[in-house]
């Protein structure tokens, strides 16, 4: 299978003057995009000494220059490590130590570290020669928040990325005629994957980078005649709060919407179907390790909207017991995925350790599910205890570590609860064992400088002791039922 870059090159040859990227008033054709990527590759090799297999940390801001440098790193033979521009110092230090990058590029808002600006990488006249890499080479490392507290570097090969894009495009049915509005952050697997999907197809991507300005979101939709966009359920919560049913005005224009995998109330699904009766509204189930392993389209699944859908094209899903035995249909167990899109490994982990993430060649997702006779999957609970705040993942341990340093707090445990405002999906709730004199405001004052806003607890409850297993592990799931 051709890499995303090779597929993009095919599009450059077939339609050099077709617009690939739009950002504000700037329009970039496929041939210009390719030129800039080659320029970035040349400079990465000559000036920043990037060689085959070298890691480059990229602050993944949603701008055109990021796209040039992202592909430029690949073309120079390097491995991209895209991170959120708002990454905090602790997480950055961890990622830097883990990947030992040859350079760090783009603007990082919360990190004390000299970085190379994207503009400097793409200026210059020299262009690299493009050689297709071996498809089993690692292309990207994306760091998850990790379930055990320490982030994990998910390595994705060129073959993984191409397979995922093919599966997604096949299911959604978008074509090169489509214009995609990209408001998701590109530092996450979902947003970055969308760029690869559209560019490999030869379509046009309008870079917006945020849903925050809903007027602009709809303004760009109209101005650029957008036919598809992607969002997470929390984005829809925000769009609805800010604009009511306005999206319905684009019912004849929007052909596709892709929705990310987190809980979405059935009423919200029905509302979207009502507002967009002719749009293919495709909700996926997946993770960074196994991007979009299942899909369901709302209108097709109108009588089965609680299902997480069917395995994606070229993908198999089976349900295994905790002992690694294949379970009969209808029985609850761990959803496990097989396909060329499944990660080729975790960075800095041994193949032996990685092998334990599989049952009989099927990658263990950590999600509990059942499957019916038609192959439709139903998610029961997340075995993982990650808190999903508006699409941003928070590990309980990260918040607890800060809480536990506050004088007066003896111990703590955090869980996700439904957002009382009904917008973010989940928010953080902290359970603390504490001295009486400490107020919520005292606690928050000490936490604010240390954590991003979305990681701050929205509810704090005082309890006498934190429930633990015999071996001393916090039983967060039991707190959920409190």
């Amino acid at each position, binding site marked *: 299978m051709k890499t995303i870059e090779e597929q993009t090159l095919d599009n450059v040859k077939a339609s050099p003057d077709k617009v690939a990227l739009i950002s504000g008033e700037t329009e970039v054709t496929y041939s210009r995009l390719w030129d800039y990527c080659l320029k970035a590759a040349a400079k990465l090799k000559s000036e920043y000494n990037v060689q085959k297999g070298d890691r480059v940390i990229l602050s993944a801001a949603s701008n055109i220059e990021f796209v040039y440098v992202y592909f430029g790193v690949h073309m120079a033979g390097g491995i991209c490590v895209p991170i959120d*521009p*708002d990454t905090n110092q602790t997480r950055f230090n961890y990622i830097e130590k883990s990947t030992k990058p040859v350079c760090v590029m783009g603007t990082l*808002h919360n990190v004390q570290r000299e970085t190379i600006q994207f503009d400097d990488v793409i200026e210059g006249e020299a262009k690299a020669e493009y050689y297709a890499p071996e498809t089993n080479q690692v292309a990207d490392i994306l760091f998850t928040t990790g379930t055990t507290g320490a982030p994990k570097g998910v390595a994705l090969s060129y073959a993984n990325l191409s397979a995922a894009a093919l599966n997604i495009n096949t299911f959604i049915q978008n074509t090169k005629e489509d214009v995609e509005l990209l408001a998701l952050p590109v530092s996450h697997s979902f947003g970055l994957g969308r760029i690869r999907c559209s560019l490999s197809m030869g379509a046009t991507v309008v870079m917006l980078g*945020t*849903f*925050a*300005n*809903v*007027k*602009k979101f*709809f303004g760009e939709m109209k101005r650029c005649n957008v036919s598809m966009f992607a969002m997470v359920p929390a*984005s829809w919560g*925000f769009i*609805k*709060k*800010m*604009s*009511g049913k*306005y999206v319905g005005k684009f019912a004849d224009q929007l052909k596709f919407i892709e929705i990310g995998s987190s809980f979405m109330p059935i009423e919200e699904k029905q509302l979207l179907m009502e507002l967009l009766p002719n749009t293919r509204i495709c909700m996926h189930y997946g993770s960074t390790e196994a991007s979009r392993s299942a899909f369901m389209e709302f209108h097709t699944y109108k009588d089965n909207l609680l299902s997480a859908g069917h395995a994606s094209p070229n993908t198999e899903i089976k349900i295994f017991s905790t002992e690694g035995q294949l379970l009969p249909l209808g029985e609850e167990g761990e959803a496990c995925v097989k396909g060329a899109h499944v990660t080729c490994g975790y960075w800095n982990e041994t193949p032996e350790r990685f092998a334990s993430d599989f049952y009989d060649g099927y990658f263990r997702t950590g999600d509990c599910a059942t499957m019916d006779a038609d192959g439709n999957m139903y998610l029961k609970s997340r075995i993982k205890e990650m808190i999903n705040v*508006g699409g941003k993942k928070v590990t309980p341990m990260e918040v607890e570590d800060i809480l536990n340093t506050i004088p007066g707090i003896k111990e703590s445990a955090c869980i996700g609860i439904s957002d009382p*405002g009904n*917008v*973010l999906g989940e928010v953080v709730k902290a359970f603390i064992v504490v001295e009486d004199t400490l107020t919520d405001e005292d606690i928050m004052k000490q936490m*604010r400088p240390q954590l991003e*806003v*979305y990681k701050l607890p929205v509810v704090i409850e005082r309890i006498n002791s934190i429930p633990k297993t015999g071996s001393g592990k916090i039983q967060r799931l039991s707190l959920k039922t409190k």
Partner: protein
Amino acid sequence: MEVKEKIFEIIANILELKAEEITLESTVGDFPTWDSLGQLNILQSVMDEFEVEFEPEEMMDIEDVNDIIKAVESKL
């Protein structure tokens, strides 16, 4: 306190900025903290503080600080 000053104070608090860093033209996305969550918090706090209610279509038209002030003043 005037409406304008109070709104500057609310925005500065939510976005963890100094009031001097904000201008009438400051808009969603100008600061890393002014993302969709920031916008939601700002509008909710403004509605609570001035005891006004914005319809979704009114909220959609609010892009910068000036828009917030105008929206509040039109309801008082």
